[in-house]
């Protein structure tokens, strides 16, 4: 019984990550408001990070940190630390990207007085 549930969970982790990513891309493509586009990109970023970390997960593995009693213990299994290191830097970079995008949105609003991308016609500042 429990085993079947955990099998379902296996597909659900990847499925959730892919679904959140696709929802974010949909928001970025289909919406007209510039702020909504930035929100969609941020949500899509979250889903992608979860997908990358889920690749490195190992059933029964512990976090890749050597506690004092680990070296003479019995459980020697650890999850993959490389995707975690990649995602760690990707989150910080994602914040920088969001901040610059929001600054551009504020500047565009001050110049054009609207956030609708259909009404922002001329590309001249």
């Amino acid at each position, binding site marked *: 019984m429990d085993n079947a549930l955990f099998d379902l969970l*296996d*597909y659900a*982790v*990847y*499925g959730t990550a*892919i*679904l959140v990513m*696709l929802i974010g*891309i*949909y928001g970025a*493509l*289909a919406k007209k408001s510039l702020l909504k586009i930035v929100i969609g990109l941020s949500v899509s970023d979250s889903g992608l990070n979860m*997908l990358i970390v*889920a*690749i490195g*997960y*190992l*059933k029964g593995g512990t*976090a*890749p*940190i*050597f*506690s*004092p009693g680990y*070296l003479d213990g019995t459980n020697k299994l*650890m999850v*993959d*630390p*490389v995707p*975690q*290191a990649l995602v*760690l*830097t990707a989150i*910080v*970079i994602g*914040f*920088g*990207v969001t*901040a*610059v995008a*929001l*600054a*551009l949105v*504020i*500047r565009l609003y*001050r110049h054009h007085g609207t956030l609708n991308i259909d009404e922002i016609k001329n590309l001249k500042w």
Partner: protein
Amino acid sequence: MKKILIILLLAGLGFYIATTYTGIGFGEPHFKHGVKDTYLKQTVQSLHVANTVTAIVVNFRGFDTLGEVTVLFLAVTALGSILYKKRHEVGVRSVLFSSSSIVTAGSKLLFPAIILLGAYVFIHGHLTPGGGFQGGVIIATGFLLMLLAYRNYSVSHIILSIVESIAGITFAGIGLLGLIYGETFLQNFLPVGVLNNVFSGGIIPIIYIAVGFKVAAELTGVIYTILHEKGESNG
């Protein structure tokens, strides 16, 4: 029409990714010839660092981290140049209500504790979960609390840029010292101590403390710049 097209496109993309990932499988050891085992072994045996993620970020892929810190610096610079204002326009930012005395007193009480937590997180980055990026972000959150609670609280941009420059020079300088005393950029040249001690891991704690100061200064600058942006509609 446009939405149907987008949904079709996303359905195709989702199908492609899903079929790829059903082949991979969740929670199975699928990287048989990967670098994982080498990293885990090297971390304990030659570096004497407890946290493998820290060892990868700072030592094995330290050059990536230098590039990433540079990207963060460029983001701050771009933010400042996009939201550029003439000097006399900078005034007290538009706050509709001044904070109540509970908020001001509470934030004054909490601010040193938040700074202490951030410092703890990046000093112990090689022993426990955490590190320079997390600690720097926590310190920036403390400054955000003070900026929200007090309407006249201001952060000196000169001090921020000095802290940031010193931290960046420390990072690059230690990397160059590794090139001089060792073989490659960012190679460890200090003695590695005993595993699970605070003074262990050679150059890793020093670099992570520098990264912590740099990230804290940069993110405080981001928050300060974007918070003092005065809108025309309701400012």
